[in-house]
């Protein structure tokens, strides 16, 4: 460090304040999304249970994580999906509960029916299968990891085997999504809010 004496403490304080403010901003943004975002419940696709709680976080798979062209036939923008691009997926409620993909595109949809919800994700991979009409797209929404306390993974894993898991997701108006908690066999597990 080569700092003039009279500037030393103001600069140190300024940097510490800026970094703290940035972290608070990060927390506040998430906090607001969880609080004000629209809550939807997505069923978690059965994963190999041995894989599920092996580490200190769970990898969650969703039906909407992989899209095929049949989901998006109405969408002329489908060709815009390349690895790394944005993906906006419109979900419509199913009559029997749960959500189904109504539309998918690389820009925010121009019209969204009331009741529908738009999720923003990032395309992980897009590849054409042998049938040229079919393209498979893998999308990540940033809700694929659920952290669990160290050592409790095994218990949850046993609990989860042969049980139905759903993820409670808060969706913001821009499509950003955050996990609020899990529903295991109708039992709601949710982290208490920070503040």
């Amino acid at each position: 460090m080569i700092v003039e004496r009279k500037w030393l403490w103001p600069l140190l304080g300024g940097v510490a304040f800026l970094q703290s403010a940035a972290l608070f901003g990060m927390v506040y943004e998430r906090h607001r999304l969880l609080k004000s975002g629209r809550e939807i419940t997505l069923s978690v696709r059965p994963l190999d249970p041995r894989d599920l709680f092996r580490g200190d976080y769970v990898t969650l798979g969703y039906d909407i994580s992989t899209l095929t062209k049949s989901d998006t036939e109405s969408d002329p923008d489908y060709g815009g999906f390349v690895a790394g691009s944005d993906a906006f997926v419109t979900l419509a409620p199913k009559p029997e509960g749960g959500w189904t993909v109504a539309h998918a595109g690389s820009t925010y949809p121009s019209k969204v029916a009331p009741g529908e919800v738009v999720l923003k994700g990032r395309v992980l991979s897009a590849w054409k299968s042998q049938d040229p009409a079919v393209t498979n797209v893998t999308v990540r929404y940033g809700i694929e990891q659920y952290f669990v306390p160290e050592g409790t993974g095994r218990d949850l894993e046993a609990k989860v085997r042969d049980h139905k898991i759903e993820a409670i997701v808060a969706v913001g108006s821009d499509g950003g999504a955050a996990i609020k908690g899990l529903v295991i066999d109708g039992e709601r597990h949710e982290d208490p809010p920070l503040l």
Partner: protein
Amino acid sequence: MWSPYKKRVLRDVDRWQSQGWLSDEGRTAIVADIQSRGRDFNLASALGILASVLFGFAAISFVAAHWEDVPRLARLALLLACIWAGYGIAGWLEARGHSLLADAGVLFSSGMFGASIMLISQMYHIAGNAADGVLFWWIGTLVAGVALRSNPTLALTMVLVCVWSFLKISENNDVHWPFLIGWGLVTVAFAWQRWWPGLHLSALALSLFIVSIGYLLESGHSHDLVAIVGVLAALGAVALEKLRPDLDHIAAPVFAYAVAVAYEGLFVLQFFESAPLGRLIVLAVVTLVLLIAVIAYAMAQGNRGALWIAYIAFSIEVLSLYGVTVGSILGTSLFFLIAAVIVAALAYAALRLARQSQSGGLAA
């Protein structure tokens, strides 16, 4: 100032004095001048830096272990307290003149800033944005490094910029051009600080980036571009050295890094891209001629870094060619013939160089 240089000069000074070329006053003046230049990197500050790196790793693994017994707000408060404590200790040490130890405090806080980002990501189950998290981290450390003029923190920033680009490249499998923005910002900061090891780090990072382009553009087959960029950069360094001899301390390292980049491109073109025999021979001849030219030039300029890189590249080249040619149409005997011609040419070049320096010495 690096101590090997100091030691070398001191040894030479002693020798010159014993030869009677240097008076006692002259020796005292030279030693005083050398001692006064630059700050020594003492053991305490080196250990301080290491300790702060270890503290940072401890914090990160602590967070990774998902520290459930403590309420989340308290965890966040603890990490923020660590950030402020690191800066507080840095200020206390700086005020007492322990400038290098103060750097360790700043580095510690920058590590804690990253640990806090990880903790918040974990608290809110934010998945799959490791690259965004590292981007956030390096912007924070860049601000700290520039505002507090802390070289170790700027070095951490350069490393984080590389990690960020690496994560982005593995995500998208495409050239990550925004790397150049981060690289440029940190390099300007290094230049502003006049910190040579940092500029070497910049050169190394940029070399790695150029090499990565070869594996990413044109579905991983644009190594010719890497070789051309390397050769052009080397020629640019030579031109700089000729036009502005006073800038040779910049041109010499640039030349060395450019040679390494150019050879990496040429090596991949020859041995990984399964070049047909004719193309391989042309490329091998070009490579060997260029390497000999580099060796001759580096010897003439006293550029030890470039000389070593060229020696190593030459050895790798000859061994790889040997491996490829054994049992092929070219035949081992032809290979040895080529090797002999090259070595003879080298010997001739060395002889001429020796003569030149001898005649130069006589003229002086």
